[in-house]
């Protein structure tokens, strides 16, 4: 039996989602198992075995046609070599989120929706042809996926709906601009001398990309989600969405060089990135809510990535990928810690968390180390990336680098204040000791982020691998 890969992967994930939904009352067991299966799938895809397409399921050898092309409703799905790293990363992120959910439950709705979302993102990556350019259709599909993500972010809670609601806005507002740009691009292909069409397309795409990337002032979903929603769900959805946006931006600017010629995208990205990084730092300095502080640290880090997107050439793209790789580690580590703290305290409000660090030292350390990594604090995972980015920025204008550095100081101030709350010696310890599995996972997160901090050169393989995917 030969199975076509573009059919096997999405249907497999959807089937898993259905099973996870049917057995949702056993959320943690199902989530753990689904995480294992997704992880194995990711490793198989990234390994050499996938090129032959042979897979062993329950002792039977099954042949998967990796080169198969599926055409449905004028949409063509096919696995291209450039899509493999992104597919692998998407599946690995899904596996990590599901496995972590097995330890600290994020709500019964999380496993099925996480798998359905992973299926959607995989379909996005497998889409190679459509009636309009697939890249220009991507934001509309992102809007669909963001609307699905609302359920995982709300996670059955009552109240605190602002974050999920606002998360809908950037893709919904941006996607019509991409489809309008496609009309101008078609005109341009008929008449390459039509400069007006080029300018109009560049403007639509430039504004659309800026809206999709959600810099300040479109950032409000991030901190609101971090304040109320389950941390692992937030980390998972945020990373997948931002990975899709970064991929889209790098591919579109490579495919349509007229964007840079007719729209000052670099200038806009520099301004938006600087504003985002500064706002993240300033707001973090005044925040004592663990979730909100995490949200602002994420925002600051995202601002630096946007700033690096404006850097010209391959070195800028490589630095963006490096920063994003470190962001994944720091975000997941802090999400693990925060999820454990939330589970123990019942909420992320600062008052019940007073002194919790003495009862849950490993989870608290994972949260702090991951959070400080997002600010580029020395000896944290983000340090090397932030340092390299600041050096690159300083080569152009040292004042911008200085402003970003001062803003990252705001995040450190926020975390120092939070450390005083979490390790408050005056509060009585009212929490049970940290459960062993949670301790082990927090410890593993600490080891991974420390490892990335001490030997960042291990990321060079990841960066060159991803760079190859961008062509």
């Amino acid at each position, binding site marked *: 039996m030969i199975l076509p890969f573009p059919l096997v992967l999405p249907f497999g994930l959807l089937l898993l989602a259905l099973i996870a939904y049917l057995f949702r009352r056993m959320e943690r067991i199902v989530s753990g198992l689904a995480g294992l299966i997704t992880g194995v799938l990711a490793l198989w895809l990234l390994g050499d075995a996938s090129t032959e397409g042979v897979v062993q399921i329950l002792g039977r050898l099954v042949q998967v046609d990796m080169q198969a092309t599926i055409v449905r409703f004028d949409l063509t799905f096919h696995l291209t070599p450039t899509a493999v790293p992104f597919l692998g990363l998407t599946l690995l992120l899904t596996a990590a989120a599901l496995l972590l959910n097995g330890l600290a439950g994020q709500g019964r709705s999380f496993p099925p929706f996480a798998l359905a979302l992973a299926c959607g993102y995989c379909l996005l990556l497998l889409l190679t042809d459509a009636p309009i350019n697939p890249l220009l259709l991507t934001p509309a599909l992102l809007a669909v996926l963001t609307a699905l993500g609302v359920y995982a972010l709300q996670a059955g809670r009552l109240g605190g709906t602002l974050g999920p609601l606002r998360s809908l806005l950037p893709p919904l*507002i941006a996607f019509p601009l991409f489809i309008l740009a496609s009309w101008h691009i078609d005109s341009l292909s008929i008449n390459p001398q039509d400069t007006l069409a080029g300018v109009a397309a560049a403007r639509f795409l430039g504004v659309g990309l800026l809206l999709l990337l959600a810099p300040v002032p479109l950032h409000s979903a991030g901190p609101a989600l971090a304040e109320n929603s389950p941390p692992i769900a937030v980390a998972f959805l945020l990373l997948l969405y931002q990975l899709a946006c970064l991929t889209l931006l790098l591919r579109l600017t490579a495919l349509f060089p007229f964007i840079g010629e007719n729209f000052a995208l670099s200038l806009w990205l520099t301004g938006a990135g600087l504003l985002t990084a500064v706002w993240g730092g300033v707001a973090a300095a005044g925040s004592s809510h663990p979730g909100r502080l995490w949200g602002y640290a994420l925002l600051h880090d995202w601002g630096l990535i946007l700033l690096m997107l404006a850097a010209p050439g391959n070195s800028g793209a490589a630095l963006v990928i490096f920063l994003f790789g470190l962001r994944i580690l720091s975000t997941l580590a802090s999400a693990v810690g925060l999820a454990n703290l939330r589970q123990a305290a019942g909420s992320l409000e600062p008052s019940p968390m007073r002194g919790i660090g003495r009862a849950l030292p490993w989870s608290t350390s994972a949260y702090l180390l991951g959070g400080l990594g997002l600010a580029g604090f020395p000896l944290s995972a983000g340090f090397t990336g932030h340092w390299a980015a600041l050096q690159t920025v300083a080569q152009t204008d040292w004042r911008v680098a200085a402003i970003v550095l001062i803003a990252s100081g705001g995040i450190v101030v926020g975390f120092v204040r939070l450390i005083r709350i979490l390790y408050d010696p005056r509060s009585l310890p009212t929490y049970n000791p940290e459960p062993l599995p949670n301790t082990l996972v927090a410890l593993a997160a600490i080891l991974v982020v420390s490892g990335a901090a001490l030997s960042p050169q291990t990321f060079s393989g990841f960066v060159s691998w991803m760079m190859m995917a961008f062509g």
Partner: protein
Amino acid sequence: MISFLFGTDFWSSSTPLLLIGLLAGLAVLVWDWRISLPATLFVQLLIGQVAVQRGLIPDEWGRVFAWVVVGCLLILFLSAQQSAPVTTNGRVGTIMFRGLLLGLGGFLLNSVDLTNLLPLLDSQMTRTVLWLALCAIFGISTGEGALQNGLALLLWLIGAEIALLAVTPAAVVVVVLGAVFLLVALACAYLLLAENLALAENSPPITDVVFPADTPPQPPLNEKLVEWRLRLTDLVLRAQQGDNPR
């Protein structure tokens, strides 16, 4: 009169566009779903018909989107019914003040040269679509609740539907747009239920994703196994006793 209303002259005049603009403004200014929901429905019906009459979109697509919007508004209506009383948190200013702001926005929109901004749409239609977009952004920025935001997003999508279907007459765009409409309405309806804190205590809505409140703490696996064994033993005993236990 009736022949005028259903004739081509009426739809190619500026009267229906003016009506659409007024209804869209009403939908975001009045924070009462009993007015906003029908106003949004009439915006879709009117602008769909205008676009069909002006040859921007095929008749069948106009009808498809009319039904899609009816479906979306029904979804929101059901949630609004369940989550009564309607939340009024985050109200920005009085209706007069909001009207003044929206009017100012309309004045600015009218004073800007919008020639060739949206391909294939004439100047009047471009202004109408952009007015819908302005109303949507105004609704999003002044409304804090899921209902206001949901209606504003629907207005945004109605404007986008006309602009996109005129330039990209592809079935895939219709399907994706329809999916976005319905999923946004579903998401907002879900959040509308979730934002009413009193609902879980009074009458929890029948939904499985997931109310009321958080997942209850699950008993350890060994306790569950013991429970399942007891149930199984009970079932076996019943089976042995048959239908008429002594």
